């Protein structure tokens, strides 16, 4: 049953499956030359495959299995979902429509026009995840993958200081003395953000492949922010079919990371214009095939002079929108005298 888990290339896996070797027990008594002849590959490759197959050939005792290994019942998942904490976005309105904040084990895509505050929201989440659980965070580290170069460390420090002030103020009000946690200085927030800069799509794919190993060594990472996921795939891609395959493979890997390590994955995306039904309108970049790669989608847009966040896709949340504002202290609730600056 485990051919899929052998560390061999996908083409070899495909050949094994189409030749009928779907389980390792079938491989266990073969000689390399026999396998090579069956699959039309060289003997060295066959030897390689057989070396990877464990020789004790774990036979699956069928029968008596009431649950397929690895499956969960909906009842168990309901209880798990209730226990999952969410990461606050520092804006109460957005938290309300999200049911408490960005949830773990899900891939959330956030898209909007330039200047709406996507990077600000990404930085805010990377800071908020480090807050202790009673303040709305998860007490973990953040991985920030920057593809555009829009990560400004000074801004992160500014947001971290504002966050720390708020945390102190809240602790004073509620008289919750957690001496150890309040001892966090703003600079500690910076230390817990792991920053990667990628400059091409190959680097991006290599990094996402590497994240599995990286996160198993850094188990306290609780959020991965990718800003922005589409940048390197939008220019100079001659082979569109290859782009679709790479993107869908990348989406599956991110989903797997989110589920396996129980962390939140936030992807920031740009917008583009699309011609449909006789008019142009704005949609998220990378087309229809990418739009299925996330669990939740939030679209940020301007309504008059105010910024709004709208839930476009979610399996369990109702469609709603909420206003928010980008201030010197980070993302906050909208106060009505916050105006968009119009460049004359």
């Amino acid at each position, binding site marked *: 049953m485990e051919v*899929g888990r052998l560390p061999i290339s996908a083409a070899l896996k495909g050949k094994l*499956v189409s030749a009928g070797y779907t389980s390792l027990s*079938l491989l266990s008594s073969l000689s390399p030359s026999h396998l090579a002849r069956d699959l039309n590959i060289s003997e060295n490759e066959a030897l390689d495959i057989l070396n990877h197959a464990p020789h004790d050939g774990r036979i699956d005792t069928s029968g008596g299995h009431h649950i397929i290994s690895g*499956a969960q019942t909906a009842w168990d*998942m309901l209880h798990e*979902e209730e226990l999952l904490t969410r990461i606050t976005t520092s804006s109460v309105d957005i938290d309300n429509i999200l049911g408490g904040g960005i949830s773990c084990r899900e891939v959330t895509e956030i898209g909007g026009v330039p200047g709406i505050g996507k990077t600000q929201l990404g930085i805010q989440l990377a800071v908020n995840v480090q807050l202790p659980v009673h303040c709305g965070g998860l007490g973990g580290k953040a991985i920030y993958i920057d593809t555009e170069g829009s990560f400004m460390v000074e801004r992160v420090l500014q947001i971290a200081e504002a966050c720390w002030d708020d945390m102190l103020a809240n602790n004073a009000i509620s008289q919750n003395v957690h001496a150890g946690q309040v001892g966090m200085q703003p600079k500690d927030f910076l230390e817990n953000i792991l920053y990667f800069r990628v400059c091409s799509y190959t680097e991006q794919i290599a990094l996402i492949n590497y994240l599995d190993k990286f996160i198993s060594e850094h188990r306290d990472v609780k959020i991965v922010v990718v800003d922005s996921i589409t940048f390197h795939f939008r220019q100079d891609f001659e082979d569109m079919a290859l782009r*679709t395959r790479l993107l869908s493979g990348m989406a*599956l890997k991110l989903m797997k990371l989110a589920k396996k390590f129980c962390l939140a994955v936030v992807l920031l995306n740009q917008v583009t214009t699309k011609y449909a039904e006789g008019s142009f309108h704005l949609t998220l970049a990378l087309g229809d095939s990418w739009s*299925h790669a996330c669990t939740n989608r939030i679209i940020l847009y301007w309504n008059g002079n105010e910024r709004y966040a709208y839930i476009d896709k979610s399996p369990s949340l*109702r469609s709603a929108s909420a206003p928010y504002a980008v201030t010197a202290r980070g993302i906050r609730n909208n106060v009505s005298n916050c105006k968009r600056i119009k460049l004359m």
Partner: protein
Amino acid sequence: MSEIGRRFTARRVNRKEGQRRAQESHSCCSALLVASFGKVTIVQGMASLKRLETEFPILDPDFQSFCALRGIFTVQDFLIRDLQSLVADAEQQPSSERFMQAINQVLYVIDGLHQPWLNGVDLMEDAQKNKHVLSTGCEGMDFLLRGGLRRGQVTELAGPSSSGKTQFCLLTASTVAYKHMGGVIYIDTGNSFSAKRIARFLNQISCPASEEMQPRVLQEVMNSILCHSVYDIFSMFDVLHCLESKLKYQMCRGDNDERLIIIDSISSLITPILGSSGSQGRALMVSAMSLLKKLAHEYNLAVLVTNHTVGGDGGIPKPALGESWKTLPHVRLLLSRDCGSNTYQVSLLKHPSIASGKAAKFIIND
């Protein structure tokens, strides 16, 4: 010889045509054999003659080397090579009788591998007794499909992003678990399975007056929905093979209560492998669907898979996965959502017994 001669006329393959076709389709043949034979018999179908020797001692090493000289190593080779010339050669050997018996034995093994023949009356009885429809919980969809999802058929639901595919899958899972008291296997590729939403749907179905369902009943119903997260197509094969052996065991004991398999979405598993050089991607897609159809037919399950859409001519979205996918599901539906509302529109693209082109609207409440 006359005995074998009779078998040959029944199984005769035109020598040149067969060899040419066999060579062309050799790579696909294995996939087809995997698809059409049962899992236990896959071992025998691919079995080398050496392995069969332990069960049938007549296939002794002499016979094996006789066959090996003619390039026949496995049962599959037996099907492909020309049997008449093999028999003619065998007759000229010194131990021709033993060889004839061995050939007969292999043919007997092959005979045991195909499914028993059914005539129309048997099929009708099977359809009436086993292949009922499962209501989806959605009136518009049930009306369009004349009752709902039919057991034994694979239904595809395609739609653009955020058009309600996952919501429909969750609603169908809740309805089947509650109304039909059946087990549901939910294979999720995008972490979109939401147990809270299932609980809300179950509350809506059972107590429309917005009361809460009894926790014990809720627990029992939700325990019959199993969710499995897979992120590549090989894991999906693993899950389906596991499921198959479990269903076989349950069938022997007579307490089979699985009713529905949902794969949300199968297109995200197939898109990463489709279209690269070589046809491995398409072969895997076809064998996945063959396996699903086989599970649906043999164990009387309904299968629901979701697909996304890509831009077609003039910007009208069309289902993804290409031309060869279009022939695979039994029923194909195209879903769309009126912007920002809870009203969905579904149209029928393909159905074995209903005219295509029909459409229906339905509402899924929050």
